[in-house]
């Protein structure tokens, strides 16, 4: 399993070798693929030091000059330069891509400062931004062409380690299911496992692994559900949403974020705005900062997101007539 930052920067590096306009700005973040970039393309690399605000402002200016700009920072510090993302990029219409590494509890056990568990909420409040959570490295790699071909302000939420259950998805010949566009980079909704219509389980990123495992437990107990990867945290087409989920009795969201304004909130808005109006259960982290030692999996287990707990909540919700 190769880290998402490595595959993205490596694939971007291959493009940058033939495109002088591609520039990468690191706010003192490293990656193996970055070492090669710095050595071979020093003119297309900048570091601002640990100075995220200047990184975004400089990036905005470079974008205004026609550069294709990527800013590499720790996901948690996007909050620190939220004003610059909003003001210098969104308001001023300067398209850059933020490579935000280590979402959710990905940096456990570094503590809550390093673990952005509200970033979907604050990033999606910015107008005209696109927020992408690739589920694995296959998907991440395919985003490079899409981003270069479609300039826009983007927040790319990269996993330090993605869910092993997602390893086989989104290979280059992966085309999802018959009723979906084979071009995965077009809609923000992808079916992962379609086993029944009692409920659709919607998730993204690392939590897809636990969602799939919960779905298997549900299936074993006779509750047939389906799992979807909702990899865009904004800009989901409302008609596609309605069409996709109208066949299900209920909707369940599973996220590694607190529930205030995050992934589940987005689905709730779509459920309401599309007049789909399905019963909806939102499962996520508690509204608190987690001061506990342990791995990401440990912290998820102790904070309400164990597979068994997700399964139980789903079963109760689905079978409660």
């Amino acid at each position, binding site marked *: 399993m190769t880290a998402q930052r490595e595959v993205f920067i490596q694939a971007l590096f291959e493009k940058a070798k033939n495109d002088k306009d591609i520039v990468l700005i690191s706010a003192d973040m490293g990656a193996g693929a970055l070492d090669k970039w710095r050595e071979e393309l020093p003119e297309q690399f900048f570091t601002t030091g640990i*100075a995220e605000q200047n990184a975004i402002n400089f990036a905005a200016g470079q974008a*205004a000059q026609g550069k294709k700009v990527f800013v590499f920072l720790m996901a948690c510090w996007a909050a620190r330069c939220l004003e610059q993302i909003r003001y*210098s990029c969104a308001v001023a219409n300067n398209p850059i891509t933020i490579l935000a590494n280590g979402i959710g509890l990905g940096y456990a056990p570094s503590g809550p400062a390093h673990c952005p568990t509200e970033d979907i909420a604050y990033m999606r409040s910015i107008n005209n931004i696109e927020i992408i959570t690739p589920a694995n490295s296959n998907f991440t790699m395919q985003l490079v062409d899409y981003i270069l071909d479609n300039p826009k302000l983007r927040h790319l939420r990269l996993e330090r380690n993605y869910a092993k259950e997602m390893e086989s998805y989104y290979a280059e010949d992966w085309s999802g299911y018959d009723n979906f566009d084979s071009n995965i980079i077009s809609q923000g909704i992808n079916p992962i496992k379609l086993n029944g219509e009692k409920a659709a389980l919607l998730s993204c990123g690392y939590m897809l692994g636990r969602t799939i495992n919960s779905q298997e437990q549900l299936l074993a107990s006779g509750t047939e559900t389906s799992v979807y990867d909702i990899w865009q945290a904004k800009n989901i087409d409302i008609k596609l949403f309605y069409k996709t989920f109208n066949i299900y009795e209920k909707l369940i969201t599973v996220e590694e974020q607190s529930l205030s304004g995050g992934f589940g909130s987005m689905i709730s808005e779509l459920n309401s705005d599309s007049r789909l109006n399905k019963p909806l259960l939102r499962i996520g982290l508690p509204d608190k900062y987690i001061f506990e030692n342990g791995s990401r999996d440990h912290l998820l287990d102790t904070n309400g997101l164990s597979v068994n707990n997700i399964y139980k909540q789903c079963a109760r919700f689905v079978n409660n007539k």
Partner: protein
Amino acid sequence: MTTQELEIKAKSVRKRIFDFKTRSGVGHLASCLSIVDALVSLYHDDNTRFNHKKDKLIFSKAHGSPAVYPILTDLGYFDEDELNKYCTPEGILRLHSDSTIPGCHFVGGSLGNNIGYASGIAYKANFNVYVILGDAELYEGAVWESLMFIAHHKMNNMHLIVDRNQLGILGKTEELLKIEPLKEKFESFGFYTNQIDGHNFNEIKNEFSQDNSGGPKCTILNTVKGKGVSYMEDKWRYHTIIPKDENLIKQGREELS
């Protein structure tokens, strides 16, 4: 233009700013008046290096940016009548200038950020970038992040202009929270720095006609907030107050005529 002609032009610019500000009652009149002489010199004095057709002047203290509007009308960027429509639904001129206004760049209104943006457009560019910073704006940490970056990359096409009018919203900077010694701070960050009288056209001309081969440049302009209107000059309360009283407006217009 001769020094005398520049002085006449500056007075005309100040009067028109005073007129559209008092008519609309919107914005930060005193913050505009302090920077007028430097702007008139940059745009109208052929001895200065700034070329408005090629170079970019970016207001980081964008609440002072309406000061440039009369200058831009004189240079034909938009009709004089736009000044009468300042901040009305029919007009194009805003409290904080932005790139929708001919002759203006980027957006305005968030202090501390436009200098970083300016460095992004200045990097290896074949034009000069001037950035107008307020002195109280220097409290923003993002400014100092950008200073380090600009100096490290030796961006000789960048010229910072600090409007050192000594006042923030709540009073004198040195009483509220010291920012001095400013010149030494900019010098220690790698900027070739001069501090001059921001209302003396000879000093301004001398400063802005020099080339930047010594490194990125910073000019600290000693200015008077509310310059030209005696009852506003150096009065911190006038940061957010625009005269409404008829007699005060009459007096201001007379003093600027």
